[in-house]
């Protein structure tokens, strides 16, 4: 079974600085998808960025980028020029690429609470 581990329960960053959130995962599959979701106090999960495992190039979305190390099974999120609105819980999630009904679910880490200090 696949697992996702986020080893940093809490992180903090100064406004305008850069922070990196860690995520590791365990799988025997060769093809899969990885996601970072943000959950503000409103509870609504918002997709931040996604990565297909077959792509070697790291995904980037504006101030958000990932460092995907497939051999090390590591998928960290870097937030540049941090803003107050970035404060939230961040969850790393895994999904299999196997085309079967029982592989569509997201498998989640425990999350990292990010505080942004003015």
């Amino acid at each position, binding site marked *: 079974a696949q697992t996702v581990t986020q080893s940093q329960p809490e992180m903090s960053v100064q406004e305008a600085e850069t922070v990196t959130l860690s995520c590791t995962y365990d799988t025997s599959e060769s093809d899969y998808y990885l996601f970072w979701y943000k959950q503000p106090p409103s*509870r609504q999960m918002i997709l931040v960025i*996604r990565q297909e495992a077959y792509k070697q190039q790291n995904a980037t979305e504006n101030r958000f980028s990932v460092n995907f190390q497939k051999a090390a099974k590591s998928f960290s999120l870097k937030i540049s020029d941090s803003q107050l609105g970035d404060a939230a819980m961040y969850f790393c999630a895994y999904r299999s690429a196997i085309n079967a009904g029982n592989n569509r679910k997201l498998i*989640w880490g425990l999350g990292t609470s990010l505080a942004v200090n003015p």
Partner: protein
Amino acid sequence: GAGVSQTPSNKVTEKGKYVELRCDPISGHTALYWYRQSLGQGPEFLIYFQGTGAADDSGLPNDRFFAVRPEGSVSTLKIQRTERGDSAVYLCASSFTSGGAAEQFFGPGTRLTVL
């Protein structure tokens, strides 16, 4: 367009009661997912629908939990004989397709409190 909506936003019930939680997915989304998020935890998968059928219900914890999606849009999660351990936020998500790296769009969740 409108996002995923869930009703009620909060539900307080007594141990042993029956509850229904509703999810309205984004129009046109064929895939619908239910997750449960306990305090301080990441979401845990409960069930996934493709159209009207439950394609994967392996996450339902026991037979007190049941979900339906009779017309392939709105879904209802039903919990019988509620227990205090059922207290959690129940999240619903939908996606246009279930394949590839399709984004799952989430609703704001229903916070269920069992007294």
